[in-house]
């Protein structure tokens, strides 16, 4: 059992303390992994700040509390980390904590006329019946400033002014990969600003978790980012196992790792298919899906599910691998290696593809870290952030693989990183598939699992970045708070930075290469 070590800071010192850590000479905490809002009841409302030093991999957690529930304020840290801006909006939306100094304090997921803050413990679940009125979006937002005398002053900021020409894209648009909505202001053909409007698939998973037992919470993880279903569930299982002190067998570790990599190939093939289709090419879509179906078949034989497998369980995996599993996986990898050239022939070298991807939508390394854009997106900008390498779990410290990074940071680099990762995943699987040790695939656990008090967190490398699980237990069979670090939320937030000044015609291709899945963003 290794609970997170949490440092409590006073609310008024939060900014200074965070700033000191951020610019520390030896270990600058330059990557803010997540801000987790909390309702501690009597103690007050507050937030946990999970941060990491990209150079050394050291992780830290800060905790800040404010006792005033009706007028909850905390200082914003969005000057230190760009990603804090959107994360603080999330905390405001769920808990009603306002951040002084954050220029944008609109709700993030819920309607602007929503009443109450759903993740507070005293929220009345029936207080917001279905509202069928069409929603109006305000063009102004609020900013709060803490005055030297301790009072709070509010002022209005304009999101889109009357001189802005705003094009609305989504929420029902075929190329936004789900129900993302972007209000985009343009100047001629060039993008001036993108304001993502989220929440069209906000399912309230984190609130639901609080009334589910630990084994029950697992089912919802698969539905977050369904193209990383295994990874998500793997992270949560690991977190619970770690907290409960459950050792899982070597065999299960092997199976989990192989499944994770198959899932990654599956997701990247879909990425390829969709990206090319969004850009107007239909044939590669059929290529990608042809190979993807083979993976789905392999998974289905063992797990029983095609897209959503519900395979990892606390203590191991649901069922042993199918007798044909190893043979089929090896055949598949052989096949994939033989056809991957076609993928590159039809698209990678294509003139049109190159013109639309090379040099377009550049994201710098500093921005990638500051915005918390993990996964292939960050690696394409030269940020080595692979959780499998830096915080190895399962079998990843035993296998040999390369972390694919590039330096250009443009759409093409993001595309190539993912294509190369497919091959790297094959390489990982090949090292494991013949050596799966005998043994149990699942250790017995109690039907009702109670975790000791404390905060626990794990992270895994999902198909599109670092997926994290942050759990606070108060010793019950239900989690007190179970939060997921969304891989996609920082990526969507990146859109604005990346797209400014680009042509609106490139917007879809840029979004495609950032590769987000919306239900994971909205949770």
């Amino acid at each position, binding site marked *: 059992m290794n609970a997170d070590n949490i440092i409590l800071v006073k609310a008024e010192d939060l900014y200074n303390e965070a700033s000191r850590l951020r610019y520390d000479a030896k270990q600058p905490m330059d990557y803010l992994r997540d801000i987790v809002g909390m309702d501690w009841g009597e103690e007050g409302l507050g937030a946990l700040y999970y941060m990491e030093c990209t150079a050394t991999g050291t992780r830290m957690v800060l905790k800040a509390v404010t006792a005033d529930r009706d007028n909850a304020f905390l200082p914003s840290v969005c000057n230190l980390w760009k990603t804090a801006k959107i994360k603080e909006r999330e905390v405001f939306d769920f808990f009603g904590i306002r951040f002084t100094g954050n220029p944008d304090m609109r709700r993030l997921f819920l309607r602007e006329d929503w009443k109450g803050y759903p993740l507070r413990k005293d929220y009345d679940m029936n207080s917001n019946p*279905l509202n069928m009125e069409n929603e109006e979006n305000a063009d102004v937002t609020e900013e709060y400033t803490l005055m030297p005398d301790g009072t709070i002053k509010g002022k209005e900021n304009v999101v889109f002014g009357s001189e802005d020409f705003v094009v609305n894209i989504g929420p029902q648009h075929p190329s936004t990969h789900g129900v993302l909505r972007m209000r985009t202001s343009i100047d001629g053909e060039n993008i001036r600003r993108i304001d993502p409007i989220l929440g069209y698939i906000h399912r*309230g998973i984190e609130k639901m978790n609080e009334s589910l037992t630990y084994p029950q919470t697992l089912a919802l993880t698969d539905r977050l980012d369904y193209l990383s279903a295994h990874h998500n569930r793997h992270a949560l299982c690991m977190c619970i196992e770690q907290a409960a002190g459950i050792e899982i067998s070597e065999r299960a570790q092997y199976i989990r790792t192989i499944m994770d990599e198959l899932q990654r190939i599956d997701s990247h093939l879909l990425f390829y298919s969709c990206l090319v289709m969004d850009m107007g090419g239909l044939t590669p879509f059929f290529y990608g899906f042809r190979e993807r179906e083979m993976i789905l078949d392999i998974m289905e034989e063992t797990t029983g599910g095609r897209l959503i497998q519900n395979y990892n369980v606390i203590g191991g995996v649901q069922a042993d691998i199918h007798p044909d599993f190893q043979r089929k996986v090896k055949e598949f990898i052989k096949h994939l290696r033989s056809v991957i050239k076609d993928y590159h022939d039809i698209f990678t070298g294509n003139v049109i593809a190159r013109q639309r991807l090379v040099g377009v939508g550049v994201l710098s390394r500093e921005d990638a870290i500051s915005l918390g854009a993990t996964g292939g997106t960050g690696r394409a900008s030269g940020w080595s952030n692979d959780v499998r390498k830096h915080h190895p779990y399962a079998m990843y410290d035993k296998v040999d693989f390369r972390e694919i990074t590039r330096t250009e940071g443009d759409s093409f680099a993001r595309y190539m990183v993912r294509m190369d990762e497919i091959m790297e995943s094959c390489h990982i699987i090949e090292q494991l598939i013949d050596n799966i040790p005998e043994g149990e695939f699942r250790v017995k656990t109690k039907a009702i699992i109670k975790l000791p008090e404390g905060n626990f967190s794990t992270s895994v490398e999902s198909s599109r970045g670092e997926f994290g699980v942050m759990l606070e237990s108060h010793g019950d069979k239900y989690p007190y708070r179970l939060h997921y670090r969304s891989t996609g939320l920082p990526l969507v937030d990146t859109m604005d930075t990346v797209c400014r000044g680009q042509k609106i015609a490139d917007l879809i291709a840029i979004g495609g290469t950032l590769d987000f899945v919306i239900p994971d963003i909205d949770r």
Partner: protein
Amino acid sequence: MEIKKRTDIRSMKYEEFRNNDYLERMVKQLNDDGAGVIVGTADELINWGRSNSLWSLTFGTSCCAIEFMALGAARYDMARFGFEVTRNSPRQADMIMVLGTITHRMAPVLKRLYDQMAEPKYVVAVGGCTISGGPFRNSYHVVNGIDKIIPVDVFIPGCPPRPEAFYYGMMQLQRKIKVERFLGGVNRKEKKEDSK
């Protein structure tokens, strides 16, 4: 003219379908109302065309939509059944395929798109989420079944449904369309309701 429709679908036997009773009721209704030789024949021809070229407005919000994409690819190839054409504009669609969870924020958008579609229009609800809220039934932000917002013609259960289930559901919709009265019937539904 006596209509003896059995709402056949090639390559699947009538008896193998479930819920045949409501189609039989629809046929009975048609016969009771009496259809002229000309109108009845024209209807049959039109319905044959309609049922085999259903254009859908895809409304994919989450996981189920990915399974729908698999349907479009070569292995399951929905073009064989005539509903491979998906439209992104409600004005051009015959039916709306709701794939995935519908949340409170999305509900007004769904209703609006449905209202924008031209008659005759159909709704297919795919997956547990659209039927009842599915795994998210207890959530504060999920609509517990889209039939609370728009009328549904076919429910396809599953989480996500298998591609085969999609086909079964779509074939049921085709069968339903085949026994409808088109001229002066479903093509003018809304008007009738207004004059009531």
